[in-house]
C-alpha cells in the first residue's frame, strides 16, 4: 500500500467536504410502522376470540352439564359477537388515512383508539350486568332457601340466596379491571411519540 490507513483517513477527511444531511420526515416511517404494529396486535386479539368461543363451547360439552349445548352456545355467542364488533372497529381504524404530516396522523389514530376503548368499556359496563342478570334470577328462583356456599359448593359462605346478586357489581368490576389492564398500554407509544413531536416542534 502506498499510504497507511491512518494517512488515508486523516488526509481523506481533510479534503472531504462532509455534507450534513437535512433532518426531514423524521417521524414518517416511524409513525406508520407504529400504527401498523398496533393494528396487527389488535387484529390478533380479535381473531383470538374465535378459538376462545370454540373452547368455551367445548368446555361446556366436556363438563357434561345439563343442556350443555344450549349453555355452550350461550357462552360462545358473546365471543363471536365481540369478534364481529372488533372486525368493524378494525376496519374503521384502517380507514384513517395518512394525513399531511405524522403528527396529525398519530393524533387521529390515538383519538380513534380512545373512542374504541371508551365504547368497549361502556359495552362491558352494560353487557356484563345484563348478561348476568337472567342467569342470576334463574339461579335465585331455583335455589331459594340455600346459602351461597351451598349453591356453589363452597364451605363457609353462609350468605342468603339474595346476596347472589352481589356477583353483578363484583364480576363487572373484574371485567372492567381486566379490560383496563389489557388496553391501558395500547396508546402509550403513540402518546410518547406525540409528546416528543410537540417538544421538538411546538407548533407541528
Amino acid at each position: 500500500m502506498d499510504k497507511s490507513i491512518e494517512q488515508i483517513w486523516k488526509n481523506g477527511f481533510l479534503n472531504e467536504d462532509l455534507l450534513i444531511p437535512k433532518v426531514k420526515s423524521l417521524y414518517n416511517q416511524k409513525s406508520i410502522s407504529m400504527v401498523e404494529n398496533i393494528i396487527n396486535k389488535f387484529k390478533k386479539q380479535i381473531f383470538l376470540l374465535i378459538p376462545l368461543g370454540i373452547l368455551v363451547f367445548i368446555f361446556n360439552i366436556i363438563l357434561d352439564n345439563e343442556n350443555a349445548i344450549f349453555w355452550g352456545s350461550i357462552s360462545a355467542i358473546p365471543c363471536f359477537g365481540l369478534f364481529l364488533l372488533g372486525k368493524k372497529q378494525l376496519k374503521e381504524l384502517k380507514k384513517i388515512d395518512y394525513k399531511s404530516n405524522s403528527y396529525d396522523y398519530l393524533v387521529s389514530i390515538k383519538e380513534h383508539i380512545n373512542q374504541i376503548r371508551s365504547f368497549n368499556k361502556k359495552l362491558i359496563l352494560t353487557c356484563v350486568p345484563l348478561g348476568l342478570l337472567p342467569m342470576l334470577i334463574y339461579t335465585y328462583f331455583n335455589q331459594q332457601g340455600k346459602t351461597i356456599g351451598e349453591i356453589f359448593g363452597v364451605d363457609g359462605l353462609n350468605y342468603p340466596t339474595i346476596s347472589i346478586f352481589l356477583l353483578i357489581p363484583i364480576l363487572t368490576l373484574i371485567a372492567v379491571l381486566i379490560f383496563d389492564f389489557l388496553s391501558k398500554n395500547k396508546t402509550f407509544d403513540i402518546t410518547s411519540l406525540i409528546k416528543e413531536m410537540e417538544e421538538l416542534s411546538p407548533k407541528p
Partner: protein
Amino acid sequence: MSNEFFKTSILPYSAIIIKICRVYSNSQQDFEDYYQEVCLQIWRSRNNFKGNSKKTTWIYRLSLNVCLTLLKKEDKYRVVHINSNNLPDRFIEDSQVFTDKDLSRLYEGIKQLSEVDRAIITLYLEELSYKEIAQIIGTNTNNIGVKIKRIKNRLEKILTKNKF
C-alpha cells in the same frame, strides 16, 4: 429539535456522526435514516450526559449504539444474507462514494469487517486513546491494542485485494 440545540449539540459533532453512520450504512437512504436517528437519540438523551466522560466520547458511544441497533433491526427482517463481495457495483450508490478515492476504498474495506471491528477501527482512526475506545466498546483496555493490530492487518489485506 430547536435550532439552538441543533447548533450547539449536533452541528459541532456532525463529522463524528457522519463518519460513524457511513461505516454502517450501504445506501444514501440508510445513511440519512441513521443520521436522523442518531440526532434524535442525542436530543432524547440530552439530560443523560453527566459530564463523566468527554462529550465526544459520549457522542461516539451513542452514535455506535444507535447504528448497531438499527443494523440489528434490519438484520432481523433480512431474509437473504448479503455479502458485500457479492454485490454488483451498481449497488454502491454514487452518493455514498467520497471524492477522495483512497478514502472511498478504505470505507468499502471497513464495511467488510464485522460490526464491532468496524467500530474499533473507526475509533482508532479518529485517534481516540485505547482507554476511550475500551470505554466506548465496553471492553478491557489491554485487549484493544492486539485487536487493532489484527483489524489493521485484515483491513490492509482487503484493501490490497480490492486494489486490483
